[in-house]
């Protein structure tokens, strides 16, 4: 096409280039995720879905599987199957650790942000410490704390004339003991998240409130909480997803079987055991998809709660 008769063209062309760039940019910027997903995750996901409908002992090698239809799902969903016990344990430990996590982390972040600004670096560093530990460190340290006869916890209780408590031996106590570790490990992480969120809230809002004579409590309730919504949604989602997939802490503290009476056997541990100890990949895959559905349902509830009463979409 000839552009001999259109002098304004150069200007318009520059404009179109900018427009095109602006339109394409988000796709380019988000493409790495999708490319990596295609390369590294799509096949594994498809494979595990495929296996969910098969009976396969991995030691028999690729190809030596047998199609069983919905049998694996039916097995897991049958009454009294360990899938349910494990799911119940998971939810219970998740609640015991997850609810206090946010009940403590939110006010903690608020207090640090409002009143301890000067020490914020130090305090947040210290609170974040538990998050950076590794599996072996946790085993050793909490093994020492929970020891029945030698542990610091029972030593302290003894000073008060109590105990000894068999923290990891009584099935009813196991979820609390494990929950406490999970709580300890992730409170600081949530504090950091909330601090990041708080820093994004404009100081002007607080100043205006101070001028109006608002108390700390009022500021927390009417300014901090509503403005922290996006970060709270994020933190809640992570807690739900993380707790429903809880594996490392109970696995290393209680061992593969989930400790006394299997009271600390979480869904993720049960899936892992089924896959690598019992060598039943099909059943394990089916359960991991069922667990996915459970997590999905809980996330939907979370999403609904956050988008229900006004505010911007999370």
């Amino acid at each position, binding site marked *: 096409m000839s552009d001999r008769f259109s002098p304004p063209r150069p200007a318009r062309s520059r404009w179109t280039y900018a427009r095109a760039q602006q339109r394409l940019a988000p796709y380019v910027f988000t493409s790495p995720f999708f490319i990596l997903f295609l390369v590294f995750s799509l096949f594994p996901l498809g494979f595990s879905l495929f296996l969910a409908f098969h009976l396969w*002992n*991995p030691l028999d090698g690729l190809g030596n599987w047998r199609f069983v239809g919905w049998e694996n799902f039916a097995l897991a969903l049958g009454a*009294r199957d*360990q899938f349910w016990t494990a799911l119940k344990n998971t939810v219970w430990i998740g609640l015991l650790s997850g609810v206090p996590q946010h009940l403590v982390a939110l006010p903690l972040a608020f207090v640090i942000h409002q009143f301890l600004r000067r020490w914020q670096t130090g305090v947040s560093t210290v609170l974040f410490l538990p998050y950076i530990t590794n599996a072996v460190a946790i085993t050793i340290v909490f093994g020492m704390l929970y*020891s029945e006869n030698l542990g610091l916890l029972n030593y302290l209780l003894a000073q008060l004339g109590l105990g000894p408590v068999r923290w990891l031996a009584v099935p009813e106590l196991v979820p609390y003991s494990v929950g406490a570790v999970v709580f300890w490990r992730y409170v600081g992480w949530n504090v950091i998240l909330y601090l990041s969120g708080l820093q994004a809230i404009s100081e002007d809002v607080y100043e205006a409130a101070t001028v109006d004579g608002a108390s700390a409590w009022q500021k927390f309730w009417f300014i901090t909480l509503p403005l922290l919504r996006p970060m709270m949604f994020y933190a809640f989602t992570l807690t739900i997803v993380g707790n429903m997939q809880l594996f490392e802490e109970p696995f290393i503290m209680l061992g*593969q079987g989930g400790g*006394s*009476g299997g009271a600390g056997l979480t869904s993720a541990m049960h899936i892992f*055991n089924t896959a690598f100890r019992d*060598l039943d990949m099909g059943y394990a895959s089916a359960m991991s998809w069922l667990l996915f559905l459970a997590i999905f349902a809980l996330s939907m509830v979370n999403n609904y709660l956050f988008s229900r009463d006004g505010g911007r979409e999370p």
Partner: protein
Amino acid sequence: MNRTALTIAAALLLGSAQAQDKVTLTVAAFPSLDSAIKAIIPAWNKLHPNVTIKLQAQEYADHHNAMTTALATGQGLPDVMAIEIGYVSKFAEGQGLDDLNKAPYNATPYKKLFTPFTIGQATSADKRFIAMPTDIGPGTFFYRKDVLDKAGVNPASMTGSWEGFIAAGKTIKAKTGAYLINTAASVNNVIIRTNLKKGEGIYFDDKNALLVGPDNARFVRAFTLSKQVRDAGLDAKIGEWSNEWYDAFKKGTVATQFSGAWLQGALQNWMAPDTKGLWRVQNLPEKGFASWGGSFYAVPSKANNKQWAWEFIKFMTLNQTSQITAFKDNGAFPALLTAQKDKAFSEAVPFLGGQKARILWRDAAAKTQPIDVNKYDSVAEQIVQTELTNVLEQGKDVKQALTDARAQILRRAR
């Protein structure tokens, strides 16, 4: 004897006569076997300077998970795969390891050179022999002589019957305050593993019929006696590999421990070195013989250097010097019968107060029977352990617990 020596010599000669190309042989193992391999590598290098050993050692459970993945995909496999006894039967039932009965291995003549039960353990239901044994963990009964003496209990009175064991425990508790055993569950674990009838595995028989249930005398007895131990306050309620466990060893607050012979090395090296001379060993109650730990070497069907893998395995398992080197390195009890006759085995063990314990262990190993395995053993084990906890911790009725265990296992064993 002579024929054995000849066979080994011939095997070794054959090895050194092979091609002199540079070869890298990958060996995947776990602790403490890796330490034994490292101790033996210098001798191997002298014999085969052209074959470099590349050792891939992982934590015990990590190693077996990695091997499961490798066998599942048939890729990334080492040339030589070490397998612990708890996994060897499972791995035998899979299809990824070479049958050593067949050419080029032709291992059949070697089988009689090893402690017999190891061969059965490494043989699949369809008679494929998939791994050569290198070390064994004869099950044994450790006791604190000082504690038993103080209580005036004759150790021999504890091995006649489980009832005698428990009666002695009551005396020990009354006279010294020491517990009989770390956990009541270990009574169950020995009883269900020993004195099995012909054709019986632990949980299933050789026709895949489930044995666990309220009508099986072995399980009822195991659960009932465990409960008696717990109800009489004779167990310290301590899990193995916990800080309390090590502490109990140091202080002598628990009088006895069922374990593998290797526990002596661990006690001596790091768990309770100061208790030297206070420990003794004897056989398990009611002439029970069981194995606690042990290692094997296998060749994956998709290994790259099968010839050299086989030479290496023979060097590790059939060479008496290698077996003794491993024994001296970390107390790995040889699976090779001739190595068990080495003079080191009739020597007194200072840690056990000069007892000639290794002779006892050797005889115990000879009497140990291979245990029939079933692919749902691990499922059954988890469920039985959970029900046993219910009995011990919550006072659940024994028969009811076994009825529930049976129902749950049947669901999963399809």
